[in-house]
């Protein structure tokens, strides 16, 4: 009888192990594939020419494969989105965690979950049909597709992750801290901003980094509002991100050509960026657990 149970346990254990390995195998497969396909073009173009070249002209007779415009656009776009999204997200989280009445909390939480569930193509579509013409009118420029449009769309897209993670961190602050502060005569607002927020700071930092990860990896929404020309980034000019550089030219690049290989190399650069963000995020969570 005992033997039978043990056998069953072993089988179930094995199944779970295999299922777990599928995830690891996928990650390994993608990493190895990206490195293998991404390295050759970097070698051929030259590491510095590739990363710091300012011109991307893959189809001229003497093609240029410099991806600095894409890297800077991705970096500026992400920073801009986080700068815009963080204050809104942070104060929303404080409000929800500490000040809002249960009913409001419920409604706003639902709205945020909904916001998180909207497919990125819908963000892009609304951006393209509402935001882009609006920016054209407001700033009196000839065309609204620009880095600014992309930043605004991205800042809305990072809101759910910033709000949710900050909210959880703020909720987790022990009641005693706040009660102590209130008992010493601090007003509720002073308590929340000077006691609760510092106590939850590593969680809030993690929320922001998660937002960075979301923004840098987004392709569909930005391709529809950024204009997609390989310019050096400028707020009102058409720009191309790392993600959109890969997706926009992949379908037409001749297979086996240096152009196609270079697109894989861009994907590799993007992958390295996202890995870095994950490492930073991980160390924040670790610190939060220890602290």
């Amino acid at each position: 009888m005992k033997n039978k149970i043990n056998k069953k346990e072993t089988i179930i254990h094995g199944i779970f192990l295999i299922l777990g390995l599928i995830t690891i195998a996928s990650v390994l497969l993608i990493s190895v594939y990206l490195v293998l396909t991404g390295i050759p073009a970097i070698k051929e173009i030259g590491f510095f020419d590739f990363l710091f070249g300012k011109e991307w002209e893959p189809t001229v007779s003497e093609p240029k494969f410099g991806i600095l415009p894409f890297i800077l656009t991705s970096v500026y776009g992400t920073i801009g989105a986080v700068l815009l999204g963080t204050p809104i997200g942070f104060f929303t989280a404080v409000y929800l965690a500490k000040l809002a009445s249960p009913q409001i909390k419920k409604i706003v939480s639902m709205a945020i979950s909904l916001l998180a569930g909207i497919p990125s193509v819908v963000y892009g579509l609304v951006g393209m049909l509402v935001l882009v013409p609006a920016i054209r009118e407001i700033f009196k420029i000839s065309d609204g597709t620009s880095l600014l449009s992309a930043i605004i769309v991205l800042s809305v897209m990072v809101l759910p992750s910033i709000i949710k993670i900050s909210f959880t961190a703020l909720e987790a602050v022990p009641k005693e801290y706040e009660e102590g502060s209130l008992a010493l005569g601090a007003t509720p607002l002073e308590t929340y901003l000077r006691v609760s927020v510092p106590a939850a700071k590593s969680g809030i930092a993690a929320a922001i980094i998660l937002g960075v990860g979301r923004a840098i990896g987004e392709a569909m929404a930005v391709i529809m509002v950024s204009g997609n020309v390989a310019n050096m980034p400028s707020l009102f000019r058409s720009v191309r991100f790392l993600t959109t550089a890969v997706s926009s030219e992949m379908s037409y690049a001749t297979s086996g050509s240096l152009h196609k290989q270079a697109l894989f190399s861009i994907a590799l650069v993007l992958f390295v960026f996202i890995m870095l963000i994950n490492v930073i995020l991980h160390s924040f969570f670790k610190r939060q657990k220890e602290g």
Partner: protein
Amino acid sequence: MKKKILSIVTVTLMFSGVLTGCTVKEGNTIATDGSSSMEKVIGALGEAFIEKNDMGRFTYNPTGSSTGITAVAEGRCDIGLSTRVLKDEEMSSDLTETIIAYDGIAVIVNPENNISDLDIETIAKIYTGKITNWKELGGRDGEIVLIGREANSGTRDGFESVIGTENACKYRQELTTTGDVITTVANNPNAIGYASIASVKEIVKVISVNGVLPTDENIKKGTYVIKRPFVLITKTDNQLSPTEQAFYEFCFSEEAKSIIELAGVVPVY
């Protein structure tokens, strides 16, 4: 995004399929190789042919015009597909070109725009940034917004080679589909773009080039100049197999005509 990945996977699968089809030559395989813009036309023709005759196997390898021409010259494939006529140096390698259809590229502007005709030189000046305001062309005051396609797109190649502005266009937006170009032009009163005629919709205004509108009639006659040929390339001295010959003839039959038209391009005969 998903669609793109899917298409990449499909292309890869097709590629591997065609490789075997090309190297291991079966008696009744029709192997075609070349322009990705001809996918719709050649796919429809191939499908119809196989279905009608219930024989043979049809393969298509979307590599690009130049690769397709090389493949035929080297005997790796039977029929090459090109969206340009042969260059002089390619002519010497005993290749025969036969144009089966023309794909017209329409120049489109926003319906609010009062410009309705431009000549080739003016279009070139607009796209290279020498003319930047509609005012200079007798339109209303507004900076011209240049909408185009991404590098390597067949439509972009076709347009730029006729206009003579290869790699010199100062695009404001580079979009990845014809549909995006049309939507964008429809939404911006100062935009100008180009798109395959078959895809153009009412929401944008098609302008005439050198006074000629891109109708099927004008494209066939050759008076509308912004067009590109769809060309079948075969080896002059090499006899096609009976199946291939039958397919080749089928491409120029009355039946094929309606298939070609359905695919959105103008048959030549």
